[in-house]
């Protein structure tokens, strides 16, 4: 990983990987959604509402995966001072928050016909809402640290990194909420290596999850490249301004 600590090396790698991930992700996710909407069967108990699964579940996974990415990058930033780790964490925050918001809105839309209500304050829904607020907090803290003028690698950058690590405590709470508490939300249908779901539903769901994951990878790379390019432009402008003021100073 330390090989990518050099921004020039990272950019060489990211230039071809960004469109590859984004385009493959768009094709796979789009194909899986068409499959789920038009060709997958309706489910015995839930009927046509099961088609929401192919968007709601990948969005929920990516909302949680985004925060795990922030936590891993924050740990790397704090322990190894990897210069790109803070940039990776910042670049993950907005996509993670977007997928968490999509998960909450689509879940609410699923809840109305399935449970007869738009919202219940149960463990799963509430912990997912807390995750969205954690993302908002992280985005605000990162913006404030960047305004401090030290960018993603200065001393103030450690505050969002610590917040990113502490906020990770919410991820197991989200995952186990349906097992620890009596919730309206169903228990997991898929766990490591086994699934209670028929392949008619499982295969398009996994294709959608893969497609959205690749797309999120592409989006994170786009945002990392934007942060890096802005930082490089700012650094050059600062150097130029300093050399101009040195030249005008009287000897």
């Amino acid at each position, binding site marked *: 990983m330390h090989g990518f600590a050099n921004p020039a090396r990272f950019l060489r790698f990211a230039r071809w990987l*960004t469109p590859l991930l*984004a385009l493959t992700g*768009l094709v796979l*996710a789009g194909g899986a*959604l068409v499959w789920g*909407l038009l060709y997958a069967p309706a489910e015995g108990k839930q*009927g*046509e*509402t099961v*088609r*929401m699964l192919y*968007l*709601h579940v990948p*969005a929920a996974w990516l909302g949680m995966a985004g925060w795990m990415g922030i936590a891993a990058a924050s740990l790397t930033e704090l322990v190894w001072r990897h210069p790109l780790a803070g940039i990776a964490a910042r670049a993950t925050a*907005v*996509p993670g928050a*977007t997928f968490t*918001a*999509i998960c909450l*809105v*689509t879940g609410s*839309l*699923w809840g*109305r*016909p399935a449970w*007869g209500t738009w919202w219940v304050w149960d463990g799963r829904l509430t912990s997912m809402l807390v995750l969205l607020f954690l993302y908002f907090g992280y985005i605000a803290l990162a913006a404030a640290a960047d305004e401090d003028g030290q960018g993603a690698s200065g001393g103030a950058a450690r505050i969002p990194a610590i917040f990113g690590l502490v906020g990770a405590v919410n991820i197991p709470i989200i995952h186990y909420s349906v097992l620890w508490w009596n919730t309206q939300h169903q228990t997991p249908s898929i766990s490591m290596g086994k699934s209670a779901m028929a392949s008619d539903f499982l295969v398009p769901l996994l294709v959608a999850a893969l497609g*959205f994951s690749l*797309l999120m990878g*592409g*989006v994170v790379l*786009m*945002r990392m*490249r*934007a*942060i*890096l*390019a*802005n930082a*490089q*432009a700012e650094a*050059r*402008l600062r150097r*130029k301004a300093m050399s101009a003021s040195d030249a005008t100073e009287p000897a």
Partner: protein
Amino acid sequence: MREVMDPWPFVIAVYVIGVGGTLLLTGLSWLAMRRAEARRDHVRGRESGR
């Protein structure tokens, strides 16, 4: 007794919001990247053109 609802408006709303949100996120991220890289190249070009 719970009212029986037509599920399709909810299914379509989920797809519109999910697909729309994802495309908006991707498009805005792409634009931000292109703008930032064009700005960096512009600053570099001005420096090397001096």
